[in-house]
Structure formats: structure tokens, C-alpha cells
């Protein structure tokens, strides 16, 4: 019996000082020996609790077993039966709240590094067998047949929900067209999450795979503006539509001074850099303000991405300002740790009440109050209340609001019969994604509000199946003599 390794096999990473100057991916991924060592920490439980923690039910035990047996390619195939995006999820899932939280060895030891192993096999497939990425080997549901192949399905948006739905539907034999508003597909994976956490080449590889599979990708097309959902269905012959348009509309606090120059939303700051390459100005034409003293408001994944990006483009001092504490913060622990290593200052129990401008309209200061935590609110977290008289002003020259997002209203406002809730989320059946409009399905952040990549991907997967069922029934109903549900 080998000695029990109490801690996770450390994931090799770039040195904190070194990485502050560039956008290179911080985590380097396991070597084969490290992956094997980590896989051997798994007890291969009879009833793997970890799998209950994964929103899509990745067969964690089985894939880890395959790694331990030296079969990484088989491992990745197993994962892809339920999760089409393992290279992405292995990197960005909040594992400590999901699969790894439930791992039975957690407590006495550190849980098995499920995310890092998932990433390892996905990268293995991509790196070691160039071209193999396009082969969607072993996928269930590749039941292409004549009558189905004729049906056209439109997928709106190109984030994880849409990428998954499009991939599954095309494998089932449908003619899929994916419509993206921006000039590059990928959704938040492209414009939001930075290169140092999720290399864009990985997102691009997923998109290339879809193209090879026959999915038509049409960028620069805003559904609801360029083409409406009704036009897609009534004039362009799409038999069903999946809406995965995300929750991209940024929130602001509504405090005085928020429209001073030098105040960004997280989406604007990240989009300028990730999508438009503003940090390469003037080689690229889009500019961005690079602050010396940057304050980021909020403490989710987005805030960590912003503050770490600000450091990489030259901030001398970068802080995260959050009204609750480290305990309530929603960011992934790994990213929080990486941010701290990179020199980010965390100001807990602090909230801005006013932004102070210079005479020419530039933000120069952020007036904050101290908070204290009182009784729990409806989210179960203790409610922060301001401490009277605790105001102080932080000197800043760039402020980024990372406060979360709302769904963009363009699709719902332009689609009669599509019901939304009071916040603008599309109402959809949690099991199928079916909306109030026949033939129209929705999933991901546009339904749930800002959530996670894997939840969006899971919703896309469920909707793909539901669309398949819907279209099969519709087709059977319209073919005389064919019994409904014959397959």
C-alpha cells in the first residue's frame, strides 16, 4: 500500500511575479506522472458522491479509473458523453462548490483534483492527437437519419449553452445554424474569461469542431434585430430555436459619480481587452484606460478576472472592494488564491457610496463605508449593513463595477409570445428548456441569471434532447400512418 497522499498533487503554475506581466495561462496542467499520481488518490467509490456534486453528472469515478489505467483517451470519451466541454470545465468550474465538495476523502484529506484531471484528459486529446479533436468519438445520440437531417434548427448565441446544444443537435443529424451577435463566437468564454485562465485557442478549437461537424456559424447577426425569431421560424424554415443569449447586460450601483470617465463595467473592461485586444493599442485600434490605482467592486469570478487583468496591463495597486467577507465571496478559491499571490489587495466589509471626480470629470476617489454583517437575508448569507460615520476616501484612477448582469432584453422584446419573469429572464421548463412559445427553447444564463459554464452547458444538452423529441413528434404527427413515438 503506497503512502496516502493527503494533499492534491499540486497543479504546476507560472510563478506569481513572472505571470503578472503577461496573459499566459497561469495553470500549466498535470504531466502524465502527476495525473497518474492524482488519479490514484481516488478511492473509486462504489457510490461516487462526487458525481452528485456535478450538475451534469460526469462519470467521475469511471474517468478517473481510466486515467489510472493509462487510458486518457477513453477517459475523455466517457466525459464527453455528458459534458462536451471538458477542457473548459476542467479549468473554470467552481469545483470546490461542486464535484470536489462532495468527494468522500475531503475533510481528512484534500479532495481528489477532479477538475485538474478532467482538464488533463481533455488537453491530452487535443495535444497528442492533432485532428482527433474533430472526431466526436463514442458520443451517444449520433442517430443521423433521413427525415431528421432535413430539419433546420437555429441556435442563438454562442456561449457554453449554445455550443453544447449546437454540437448535440448536429450530431443527431439536424442542420444547425448558430447565430452570434458579436464578430467572434464563444460568448463569455471569449469576451469575458481572460486568456490567463482559459486560453482562447481552446475555445476556438471547440468552435472549429462544430464547424467540422457541419454547424454553420453566423457571426454579426443579432437575433431580434437582424433577424427575428418569428422570421427564423416562419420565413427561413427553422423548425426549432434554442436561445442561449446569456445574461450580458451589466449592472451598476446607482451611486453618484458612476458615470465619471475612468469608471467601467467589468464587461466593458474585459471586452476591450479580451475581444478587442485593447492592451495592444495602438497595434489594435480599440483603446482602454490602464489605471495606476484600480478598484474593482464585487468579489465573484468576474471581479477576480478584472483585477488580475488590471495588474497585467500595468496597475501599481489593484484592490477588490466587497461589502461582505472572504467567506461569502463567490469567486473560485483557486482564482482568489492566484489573485492574492499576484498582489491584489482585498478590502472586505467595504462598500462604495460615491465616486469623486476631478474638475475635468475623471474619477479620482472612491468614498466607501465600512460594513458589518447582521442577520441572514433571503440568500442565507448575513446581510451587510453600513457602519454610520465610517466613511473614508480611497485614491483611485480606475474603477470597475463587477456587480453581476441582467439578461439582454433584445430577444425577448422582439419576440411576441415569449414569456419572461420580472427581471427579464426567459421562462423555461428546467428539464427541457421549453418556453411559452412552441418550438422555442432556452437555457443558460438567459434563463437562470448569471450562473456557471457547466450549468449553461447542461441546459444546452437537455434542450438539445428536448428539441429532438419535439421535432420527432411533430414530424410523426405530420406523416400520416406513422405512430407517434416510434423511436
Amino acid at each position: 500500500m503506497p503512502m496516502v497522499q493527503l494533499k492534491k498533487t499540486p497543479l504546476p503554475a507560472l510563478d506569481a511575479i513572472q505571470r503578472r506581466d503577461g496573459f499566459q495561462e497561469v495553470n500549466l496542467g498535470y504531466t502524465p506522472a502527476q495525473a497518474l499520481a492524482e488519479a490514484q488518490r481516488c478511492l473509486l467509490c462504489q457510490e461516487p458522491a462526487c458525481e452528485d456534486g456535478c450538475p451534469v453528472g460526469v462519470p467521475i469515478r469511471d474517468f478517473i479509473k481510466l486515467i489510472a489505467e493509462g487510458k486518457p483517451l477513453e477517459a475523455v470519451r466517457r466525459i464527453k458523453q455528458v459534458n462536451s466541454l471538458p477542457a473548459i470545465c476542467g479549468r473554470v468550474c467552481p469545483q470546490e462548490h461542486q464535484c470536489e465538495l462532495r468527494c468522500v476523502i475531503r475533510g481528512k484529506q484534500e479532495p481528489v483534483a477532479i477538475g485538474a484531471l478532467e482538464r488533463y484528459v481533455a488537453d491530452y486529446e487535443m495535444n497528442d492527437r492533432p485532428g482527433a479533436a474533430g472526431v466526436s468519438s463514442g458520443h451517444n445520440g449520433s442517430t443521423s437519419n433521413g427525415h431528421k437531417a432535413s430539419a433546420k434548427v437555429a441556435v442563438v448565441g454562442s456561449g457554453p449553452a449554445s455550443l453544447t446544444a449546437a454540437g448535440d443537435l448536429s450530431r443527431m443529424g439536424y442542420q444547425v445554424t448558430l447565430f452570434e451577435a458579436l464578430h467572434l463566437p464563444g460568448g463569455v468564454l471569449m469576451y469575458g474569461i481572460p486568456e490567463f485562465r482559459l486560453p482562447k485557442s481552446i475555445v476556438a478549437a471547440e468552435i472549429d469542431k462544430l464547424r467540422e461537424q457541419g454547424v454553420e456559424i453566423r457571426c454579426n447577426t443579432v437575433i431580434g434585430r437582424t433577424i427575428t425569431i418569428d422570421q427564423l421560424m416562419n420565413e427561413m424554415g427553422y423548425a426549432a430555436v434554442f436561445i442561449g443569449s446569456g445574461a450580458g447586460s451589466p449592472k451598476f450601483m446607482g451611486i453618484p459619480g458612476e458615470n465619471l470617465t475612468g469608471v467601467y463595467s467589468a464587461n466593458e473592461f474585459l471586452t476591450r481587452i479580451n475581444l478587442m485586444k485593447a492592451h495592444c493599442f495602438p497595434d489594435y485600434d480599440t483603446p482602454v484606460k490602464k489605471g495606476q490605482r484600480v478598484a474593482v467592486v464585487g468579489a465573484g469570478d468576474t471581479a477576480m478576472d478584472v483585477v488580475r487583468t488590471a495588474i497585467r496591463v500595468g496597475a501599481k495597486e489593484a484592490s477588490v472592494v466587497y461589502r461582505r467577507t472572504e467567506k461569502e465571496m463567490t469567486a473560485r478559491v483557486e482564482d482568489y488564491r492566484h489573485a492574492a499571490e499576484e498582489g491584489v489587495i482585498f478590502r472586505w466589509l467595504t462598500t462604495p457610496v460615491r465616486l469623486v471626480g476631478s474638475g475635468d470629470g475623471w474619477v479620482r476617489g472612491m468614498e466607501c463605508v465600512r460594513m458589518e454583517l447582521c442577520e441572514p437575508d433571503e440568500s442565507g448569507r448575513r446581510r451587510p449593513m453600513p457602519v454610520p460615520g465610517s466613511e473614508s476616501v480611497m485614491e483611485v484612477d480606475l474603477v470597475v463595477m463587477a456587480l453581476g448582469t441582467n439578461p439582454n432584453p433584445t430577444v425577448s422584446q422582439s419576440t411576441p409570445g415569449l414569456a419572461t419573469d420580472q427581471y427579464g429572464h426567459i421562462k423555461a421548463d428546467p428539464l427541457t428548456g421549453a418556453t411559452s412559445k412552441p418550438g422555442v427553447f432556452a437555457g443558460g444564463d438567459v434563463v437562470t441569471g448569471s450562473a456557471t459554464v457547466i450549468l449553461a452547458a447542461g441546459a444546452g444538452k437537455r434542450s438539445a434532447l428536448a428539441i429532438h423529441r419535439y421535432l420527432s413528434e411533430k414530424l410523426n404527427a405530420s406523416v400520416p400512418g406513422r405512430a407517434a413515438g416510434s423511436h
Partner: protein
Amino acid sequence: MATIVHKRDLTPITSLFEVDAPLIARNARPGQFVMVRADQRGERIPVTITDSSKERGVITLVIQEVGRTTRMVRSLEQGDDILDFVGPLGRPVELPGRGRVALVGGGFGAGAILSLAKELTVRGVHVSSIVGARNRDLIILDKEVGAHSKRLYLCTDDGSVGFHGFVTGQLAALVQEGDPFDEVFAIGPVAMMRAVAETTGRFGIKTQVSMDPIMVDGTGMCGACRLTVDGQLKFACVDGPFFDAHKVNFAEAIVRSKTYVDEERAAMTTAVARG
């Protein structure tokens, strides 16, 4: 990708483009805009749909050169492709169905009022168009706009043609002479629109202006284009671009539009040519 099917230089700094974009032309309504990106390293910039033809599947743009991107777009020729071309974006402007309307245009807006003039004329509204420029050589699309207006008033800063002075001077003169406008619409430089708002505010005439804040995506995702209108936060690309002129916080909009003046200057001094 969209192909330029026709190009015409209107002045030394302004060109008109007809772009092949049948899907956009089909759904375009007056007041909407497109986002344009000319090359792989280029910036996304908003440009008003000056005119559109469903039948021919084309969108007409008027581009006035003010910086690096507008210069790059203007250097494109008939037959060239525009790399990224997205639209129609923004809410269509709410136009009245009757009465008397004044359209005020300056800069590229002198052309951009054309789509409003056309639609209003179809609806039977009495249209007076007031367009301004520094001198007679910089007046654009006056024939086209005139063809869809009951009255056309040209204004030049130097008096080389038409009214000697600003568009607001002409507008005020018309109102004072007893021309009762029910509503005024203005498109042009923000300083002009603010002046129009001040002028019509004095006379209590309902006015809408097409705000032109800096945009990134143009789809409501970044908040760069935010404005304060009636004390409320608005995103010009999805809530606008037209807003009630008497409720817009112009001072804030003008400060925000100057965010990148240093970078804009730098961009003009670096070489434009690239592979």
C-alpha cells in the same frame, strides 16, 4: 462581411457608401444604426443608417472622417468588403403620424436625417429640414433630403450659402416667425444637439436627439454607451440612440465622449497601413 456596392465622396472629409446587406435592409427602421469594423485589428464603430432599400438590399451610410477608424472606412472603395457589419441596432425612432416636424442635421447628421424625412413624408407629416455646415462645400445630401422635405433650410457658419449662422439660429428664427413645430428631431455633433435642446426648450417644443456616445459592442453588453436621461441610467445602443433632448444630461455625455482623446491623437500619428 458586406460588400460596398457604391461609393461617392460628398466633401473632402465625407463619403457615402451603399453596402450590400439584404438582411439588415429588410428590418432597418429610421433612427437605427450599424456597427462597423474594417479590419482584424480594427475598432467597432457605430454608424447611422442614413437610408436603406429593401428592394435592392442595400444600406446607405454617410461617414465623416474624424479619426483613425473613420479614415480607414472612408479609404475603402466600391467592391471592397467591410469585415464586420452588424445591424440594424438600437430602437427605431418614434415618429409622429401627423403635424409639423423640423429635422435638424449637422455633420454626418445632415445626411442621416434622410431616413426620418422619408418616413415622415410617407406618413403625411409636414417636414422642414434644417441642415448646417461650415461652408457651402461641406453641405451634404441637400438634394436628397430636400426631395423628402416640404422645406429645406441650409445654414453655413460663413454665410456662403443659405442662413448665415448655426442651425439653431435658423430654427429659432422659424419658430419666432410663427412656424409652429410639433416636434423636432436632431442628429449631429453633441454640441449641436445640446444647442437644439436649449433652443426648443425655450419654446417648449418636444425634441428628440440621436445621442452618439462611445460604443464597444453596440448590443447592450458593455455599458460604455451609458447616459443619464431624466436621472435614469440608459444604454444608448439598446435604449436609444434617440432620447428626449430635454432630459439628457449633456454635460456628462460630453465629458464621457472625451475619454480617449489622448489615445485618439496617438492613433492618428501611428501608421495606418498594415497587412
